[in-house]
């Protein structure tokens, strides 16, 4: 129940961790949707793969962290481009609609998740480390290093995405592809390459978030589902591919989830967010604001 300010500040801290996670997941998902106009549901599997990829190199193959962490994240992030080449591109060429792309991405995510299960077991794997579990105090809120890293990662990826979208060639190409693919092709943009790079960037975000989440709460093969759903939720609430909208939406979801839990019980907090998604889809399928051809 709402009570002492200490508890309030702590909940606010927990909120920020969730907001960071949802923002990062929503960002990758939203960018892929903005560029390619389809639901990339395998995004959650990439999140899981990030955590297990690093586990594979650092714990199983005993690489030092400075080499194993990038290797694991890279391996997971390559899932994005690989998926583009093996599934999405052939589907695009054969004239599949967005539903076909979505179903195939769902299929891929099932394959990835259960391959991980086969390789590492279905059970929870404890990977928390003393260093990352050590708490840092922010006023009266205590966050572990892993949690603080998630918040920072959210902020950094927000800033990076804003800069990339506004000032780089890739950002321009991505916006052009999303706004009008045929026109983008006509003016010489390699749409396939834009989508592949977007998928790589999104996967890098997701796999890093997966690693940070594993350091915070350990890992299991099903760990990607909840961040995926809430990322989708944040992305659609904010208007797909909109940075400012996404940040607000992730904030709203985080607050609703953590402070809502005071009243309805923690087990319903995820349902609450999904209910929000459901209502938004039913009421305003195009998101909370209609996208014009603004810069970001």
């Amino acid at each position, binding site marked *: 129940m709402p009570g002492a300010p200490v508890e309030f500040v702590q909940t606010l801290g927990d909120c920020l961790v969730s907001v960071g996670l949802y923002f990062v997941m929503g960002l990758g998902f939203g960018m892929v949707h903005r560029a390619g106009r389809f639901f990339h549901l395998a995004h959650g599997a990439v999140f899981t793969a990030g955590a297990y990829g690093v586990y594979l190199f650092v714990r199983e193959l005993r690489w030092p962290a400075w080499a194993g962490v990038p290797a694991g994240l890279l391996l997971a992030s390559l899932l994005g481009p690989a998926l583009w080449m093996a599934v999405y591109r052939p589907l695009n060429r*054969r004239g599949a609609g967005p539903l076909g792309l979505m179903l195939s991405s769902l299929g891929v995510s099932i*394959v990835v*998740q259960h391959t991980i299960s086969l390789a590492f077991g279905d059970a929870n794997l404890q990977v928390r480390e003393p260093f990352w579990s050590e708490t840092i105090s922010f006023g009266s809120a205590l966050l572990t290093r892993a949690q603080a890293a998630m918040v920072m990662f959210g902020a950094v990826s927000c800033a990076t995405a804003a800069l990339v979208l506004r000032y780089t060639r890739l950002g321009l190409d991505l916006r052009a592809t999303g706004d009008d693919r045929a026109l983008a092709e006509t003016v010489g943009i390699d749409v396939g390459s834009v989508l592949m790079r977007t998928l790589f960037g999104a996967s890098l975000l997701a796999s890093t978030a997966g690693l940070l989440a594993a350091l915070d709460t350990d890992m299991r093969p099903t760990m990607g*589902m909840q961040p995926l759903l809430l990322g989708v939720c944040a992305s659609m609430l904010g208007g797909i591919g909109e940075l400012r909208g996404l940040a607000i939406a992730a904030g709203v979801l985080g607050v609703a989830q953590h402070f809502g839990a005071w009243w309805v019980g923690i087990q319903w907090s995820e349902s609450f967010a999904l209910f929000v998604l459901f209502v938004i889809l039913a009421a305003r399928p195009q998101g909370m604001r209609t996208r014009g051809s603004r810069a970001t």
Partner: protein
Amino acid sequence: MSYALHLGTVIALYALLASSLNLTAGFLGLVSICQAAFFGLGSYTAAVLLRGTANEAAVVAAVCFVGGWTGGVALSMALFRLREDYFAIASFAFQAIATTAFYNLRAVTGGAPGIAGIAPLRFAGLPLASAERSLVALAILGGVLWLVQRALLRSPAGRVLAAIREDEVSVLAVGLDPNRYRVALFATGAGLASMAGAFYASYMTFIDPTPFGFDESILILCCVVLGGSGTAMGPIVGAVALVCLPEALRFAGFPSAVAANIRQIVFGAALVAIVLLRPTGFRKTAGVGS
């Protein structure tokens, strides 16, 4: 023999579930990922009705059908503006909410431990306790549904459905309301899935939330897609194939935990493969106004 009967019952159950999804996913091209939620709704409704005492099959099935139908009307009315991937993702959110509800509404569902000691359905005084009787009941239901689907496909209404799937504008142009067909078929499918749940609860005598989750919804969708969506026979073929597959893996000597994962991998890969092989099966063919 009892093993074959059990397998037959499970196949019949999935054939029924897949056929119920086929009504919208196949006939109308409106793919949803929440059939297991309605399946669960029916199972829990039946479990409440059958707690400790056997009950007349017709009554329980009717109650479950109406329950699922009402849920289906509500859901499809709420989502009637959505098409294709947006509809699918909204149904996916609904499935996730339903799963949470199955786990957390402990007073009704018993939570993760589930409900045990469900009494069998009775048909004309005869309890449907054994696999034989459950199988016969489900097979009759599945057969009727197959005949109805076949008849529907060949009727003028069936051509309207195909027209809604392929070219909605033409349907509007002749003064018909596609959304009425969508809601009617979606609700009927939900009602049938819910009714299948009643037979499942009665047959298993124990239910927990596992078979009413996301994986199961995908499996049902796979049955439809793999067998050939939009045909009367397709879902049945798909159900036979996908139920027998894990059994075959078990016979091949894989331990069940491994077999479960392999089964899922095969489903996932099959889904990707089918979309790749029949990409235009998942899009409206170009028509007027599209």
